[in-house]
């Protein structure tokens, strides 16, 4: 048996001979010149943390944390900001950047003339946005620790949690961008993200919402992301974590499936 057929047996077809790493190489080449943009992305959530945590902190006082504890407002809002910035980063990368390449640059057309396949592109782009996510969330967790906002060394698990959020939203965003016709459609994306950002138990606990709306909040994928990160940084481990993780994985896989299928149809008519 040749190695080729062996890999085909071990791996599902889309993953056999994956060359997604080439796309990451390409993006690294691009950002070698624009590294400032890459690095500056780290500061945005930190500014939010300083503003809300320090500025608002004394106005708000203590907040109900997970598991009946009370925590400082900064410690409450910091994990939510980490989750929200993982979402925003992944969606921007997966919508605006991919749309540019898809519709205007025609770069993907040229890439598909080489041995790379649509799957390689889909997985490569999403992996790239996850790698950026690792960079940002690691930086953010370090800042949190420096500010004394983490309750346990296990807070380091917030980093993979942020990656999972990035995966879910990156894949969904990529699927969405294959349906977009023009720039105007991005206003819709923004219009969708803003309520998620504001109403996912991000800035205050779930019990502040009217009881009728709590179930709606719990539908938000970002809510599950926020709760997941919060559980890790505030050291509140319970079974709910499994639910959050499952929800995010489901959304990410569905997005990836749709994106791969749509890309193939769009690029190989």
């Amino acid at each position, binding site marked *: 048996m040749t190695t080729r057929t062996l890999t085909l047996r071990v791996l599902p077809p889309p993953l056999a*001979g994956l*060359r997604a790493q*080439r796309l990451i*190489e*390409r993006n690294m*080449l*691009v950002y070698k010149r624009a590294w400032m943009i890459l690095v500056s992305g780290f500061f945005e959530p930190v500014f939010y943390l300083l503003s809300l945590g320090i500025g608002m902190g004394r106005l708000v006082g203590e907040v109900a944390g997970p598991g009946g504890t009370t925590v400082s407002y900064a410690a409450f809002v910091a994990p939510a900001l980490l989750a929200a910035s993982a979402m925003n980063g992944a969606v921007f990368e997966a919508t605006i950047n991919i749309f540019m390449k898809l519709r205007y*640059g*025609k*770069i993907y*057309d*040229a*890439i*598909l*003339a*080489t*041995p*790379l*396949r649509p799957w390689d592109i889909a997985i490569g782009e999403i992996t790239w946005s996850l790698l950026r996510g690792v960079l940002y969330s690691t930086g953010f967790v370090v800042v949190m620790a420096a500010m004394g906002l983490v309750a346990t060394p296990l807070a380091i698990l917030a980093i993979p949690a942020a990656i999972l959020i990035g995966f879910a939203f990156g894949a969904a965003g990529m699927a969405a961008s294959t349906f977009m016709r023009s720039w105007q459609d991005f206003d819709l994306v923004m219009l969708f993200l803003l309520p998620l950002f504001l109403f996912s138990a991000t800035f205050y606990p779930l019990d502040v919402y009217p009881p009728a709306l709590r179930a709606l909040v719990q539908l938000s994928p970002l809510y599950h992301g926020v709760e997941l990160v919060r559980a890790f940084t505030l050291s509140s481990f319970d079974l709910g974590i499994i639910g959050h993780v499952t929800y995010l994985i489901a959304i990410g896989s569905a997005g990836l499936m749709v994106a791969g299928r749509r890309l193939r149809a769009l*690029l*190989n*008519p």
Partner: protein
Amino acid sequence: MQPLVEAADLTKRFGDFTAVDQIGFSVAPGEVFGFLGPNGAGKSSTMRMIGAVSPVTSGRLRVFGLDPAADGRRIRSRLGVVPQDDSLDLELSVEENLYIYGRYYDIPRRQIRARIEELIDFAQLGERRTSRVDPLSGGMKRRLTIARGLINRPDLLLLDEPTTGLDPQARHVLWDRLYRLKQDGVTQIITTHYMDEAEQLCDRLVIMDRGRIVAEGSPRGLIEAHSTREVLEVRFPVGELEPAGPALRQVADRVELLADRALLYTSNADSALAETHRLGLRPESALVRRSTLEDVFLKLTGRTLVD
């Protein structure tokens, strides 16, 4: 020798529209093969099927003896592709474009570095190698795209309308580059709607119209088979061309009346011109030339190549 590309009854449909309609052809190693036809004849669709990026609707297609449906990746790894719209990576520089395409083919870095030197030289882009792609001229971009298509030392180079949109000088530079490749033994498939380009570059070509192949042969052979040795082109003042038609038909073997001029097909254009004057016709201008592929296309389809 086994042909590099072989097609029989090859068909491509988009919904109800048939872009390529049961065509057959084969391309031998070392030759430059052309698809000549107007826009919308099905040339680009055929190229995309050969390039293993567009699935075949029906019929048989083999590239390097492989089936694009099953072995697309292996086929693409041996092809070089020069698309019509360049589709260069605008965020990267000239040499980075070459470099990253080499990586897409899994070529080791050191090997790519060596090839970039060769290809920058070949594409005459030495002074612009670190420049971004955006500000390059159309001719430079096209040369870079060709260089990019050669990064994997392809067994077959596909060029879709390589000189469309370029100024005459840039076209000649490009033809010179393609001629060099031919001398180096690189097999090429070219689509074009310029008959002069097809005559200059192709060893053998097919003429396509509305998804079908209407003729096949060498440029010279096609002209000999489908046209006369010489052509007389005459122009008349506005409104006088139409009435002159019947008289002109007495002068030549065959006459085509176009919007602005008449083409008289004859073995001896000079005597046809004298005969025209003898009949009392006074054309504004007259031009004697040899038959070209344009004339072949006109005869076979009743239409000109570039509207």
